[in-house]
C-alpha cells in the first residue's frame, strides 16, 4: 500500500492506528483567580512516521502540549493514548520508563551535560537502561556517526559549535531507537545555514528510519520541512493541515 519512504500519506488513512492520541486533554495551572487554562480540550492524533510541526504564539499552549506528549507533565483531565495504551494515570517512574524507551528529546538550548564528552552525553540514556559498557559505547559511536560527528566523540560541549552540539543532542535522542523525537525549537539558537542542516538531518531520520517527529518552531521555513502543520491558539488547536509540497522542495 503505502511506500516505505512516505508513511501516512493521506489525511483519511484509517487503517493505521495512531501512535499518539489525545482526547479532550485539558491542563490547568493554579487554582481560583490565579487559574490558567493552558490547554482546553485538545483532540490530536499522530500517526507513526508522521513529521508534525507545532506552531503558535507564546502562551498558546504548545509547550504544555509538548510536555504532556513527552511524558514530562500530566493532563488535568482528558485521555492520552500512547500506542493504544492510556498513560495519563501512570506514576513518575513509569513515565520515566516510557521516556527512556520510546522518546528522544531535542531542546533549543541543546541541554548537554557540561564537562562531559559527546560520547558520554550520547551514552546517558543507555546507562539508565542498564546496558553494558561496551555495547553502550558502540551504539553511541554509531549514533554520533549518523549525525555526522565521527571523530568528535571525545569533545566536550564547550569545544563544539552550536550546530555540532545540537547534533550531539540529536544523537542522544536517537541512540535508544525511539518511536518519537520531540524537538522543542531545535533551530532556535542556530544561524540559517546550520538550521537547515539540522532540519535536513531530522527529515532524514523521519524518512529513512521512520521516526515520528513532533517539533515546536516559530520559524515558517523550518515548519516547511514537516508534513503536517498544527497551529495552537489560546489552548486550542486553531488549524491542522497538510500543505501540498511543491515538486522540488527547495525554496
Amino acid at each position, binding site marked *: 500500500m503505502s511506500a516505505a519512504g512516505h508513511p501516512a500519506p493521506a489525511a483519511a488513512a484509517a487503517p493505521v492506528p495512531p501512535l499518539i492520541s489525545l482526547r479532550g486533554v485539558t491542563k490547568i495551572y493554579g487554582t481560583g483567580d490565579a487559574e490558567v487554562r493552558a490547554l482546553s480540550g485538545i483532540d490530536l492524533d499522530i500517526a507513526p512516521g508522521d513529521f508534525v510541526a507545532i506552531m503558535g504564539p507564546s502562551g498558546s499552549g504548545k509547550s504544555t502540549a509538548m*510536555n504532556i506528549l*513527552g511524558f*514530562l*507533565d500530566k493532563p488535568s483531565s482528558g485521555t492520552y493514548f500512547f500506542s493504544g495504551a492510556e498513560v495519563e494515570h501512570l506514576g*513518575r*517512574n513509569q513515565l*520515566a*520508563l516510557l*521516556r*527512556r*524507551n520510546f*522518546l528522544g*528529546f531535542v*531542546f533549543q538550548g541543546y*541541554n*548537554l*551535560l*557540561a*564537562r562531559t564528552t559527546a560520547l558520554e552525553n550520547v551514552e*546517558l*540514556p543507555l*546507562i*539508565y*537502561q*542498564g546496558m553494558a559498557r561496551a555495547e553502550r559505547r558502540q551504539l553511541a559511536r554509531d549514533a554520533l556517526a549518523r549525525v555526522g560527528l565521527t571523530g568528535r566523540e571525545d569533545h566536550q560541549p564547550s569545544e563544539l559549535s552550536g550546530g555540532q552540539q545540537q547534533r550531539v543532542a540529536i544523537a*542522544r535522542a536517537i541512540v*535508544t531507537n525511539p518511536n518519537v523525537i520531540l524537538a522543542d525549537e531545535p533551530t532556535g539558537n542556530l544561524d540559517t545555514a546550520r538550521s537547515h542542516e539540522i532540519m535536513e538531518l531530522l527529515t532524514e531520520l523521519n524518512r529513512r528510519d521512520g521516526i515520528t517527529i513532533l517539533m515546536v518552531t516559530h520559524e515558517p521555513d523550518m515548519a516547511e520541512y514537516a508534513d503536517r502543520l498544527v497551529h495552537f491558539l489560546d489552548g486550542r488547536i486553531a488549524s491542522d493541515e497538510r500543505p501540498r509540497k511543491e515538486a522540488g522542495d527547495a525554496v
Partner: protein
Amino acid sequence: MLYETVRLALQAILRNAFRSFLTVLGIVIGVAAVIAMVTVGQGSTDQVQADVSTLGTNLLMVRPGQPSHGPGSGVGGTAPALTLKDVDAIEEQIPSVAVATPSNSRAITAIAGNVNYTTTVTGTDNRFLVARDWSLASGREFYESELRSGASACILGETVRQKLFGHSDPVGVNIRLKQISCRVIGVLSVKGASSFGSDQDDIVLIPIRAFQRRIGGSQDVSMIYASIRNGISTDKAKGDIERLMRERRHVGPFEEDDFNVFDMKQISSMLTGITSVLTGLLSAVAAVSLLVGGIGIMNIMLVSVTERTREIGIRLAVGATEGQVLLQFLVESIVLSLIGGLLGIMLGLALGLLGTKLLSVPFAPNATLILAAFLFSAVVGIVFGYFPALRAARMDPIEALRHQ
C-alpha cells in the same frame, strides 16, 4: 550501574576538589580525633598493664596514713611511721607473704668525677630485688654486714650508670650522694619505662640503715613492699597484713586504719580509669565534630543539587527514574564522607603514632575501631546525604530543564 554511579560521583567530587576537601574536613577531624585518642589511650592502658606485670601483680605496698588518701597520698600527718620491725613482722608472721622489704626514697644529685645527675635514691635491702623481681647486670648484692652497719655501698640503675659513667664499668668506683661518699658495688639490669614514662632504671639503691642515718635522719620506714606467695590471693594477703598492722599499731576495733595497703591492680585500675574518662570525654567531642561534619556534607550536597538542577532535569528527561537520581546523589555523599573517613583514619593513625611516641607507650592501632570509623563515616554520608538526594530525585523535570 553501581560502578557507573560511583565513577560519576568521584568525577563530581573531583570537579570541585577544594570545596569537597573543605566539606569533608569535619569528618576528617572527627574521625582523626577518635582514632588518635583511642590509640593513645589504648597504648597508655597497655603500658600500665605491662608495668603492673613487670612490677609483679603479686606485690603489695604498705604506707602510713589514711586509706581514703589513696595510693598517691604522702605520709599521713598524725599516723605513726612504719619501722624496720614492721618489715620483719610482716615477713615472718604472715605465711602468705614471701618477702617484705623497706623502701625509702628521695631525689638526690649523684656526682661522679665532674658529672652531676639527679636521681632517686632508695634505701632498702636485698629483698627489694626479690620483691621487684629484679636482677643484677654486674657486681653483687649488699653484704649482710653492709646492711647491718648501714655501710656506704650503692647499686646503680642502668640509667644512672649511663649518665655518670657512659660506657665504662662503675663497679668499685666511689660516687657522691649528697654528703655521703659511697662505693658502687653493682648495676641493676634494665627494667624500662613505667606508666606515663617514668624511668624505673633511674634509681640508686643503698642500705636502708644508711638512708635512715645519713639521708632521712630518722628510724622511719616510709613504705614496705610485700610480695605474696604464689597461689595466694591478693585479698587474703592484704587482709592478713591489715590485721597484723592494726594489732601492731594498736588501732582500736572501731577506728579506721592509720595505714594503707594497696596492690598494683588498684593502681592500674585507677590509671586505666583516668585514661578511659579522658578517652570518653574526647570521644564525645569527636562525636560532636562528626555531627557538624555531617551537617556540612548535607549543606554542600544541597548546594550541589541546586547548582545541578539543569543536569538533573536532563537526566530525568532521558529517562532516569527517581531511584536512579536518588542513588546518584546518595552515592556521591557516601563517597564524599568515606573519603573524609579515610583521610581521618590516616591522620588519626599518624597523630596516634606521634602521641604514643611522645608518651613512650606502645602504638597499638585498633582494627575494629578503624573499621567502625570507616563504616560510621558511610552512615554519616547516608544520613546526611539522603535529604538532598531526595530533593534531587523529586524535582519536576520541566522546572529543572527551565532552570538557568
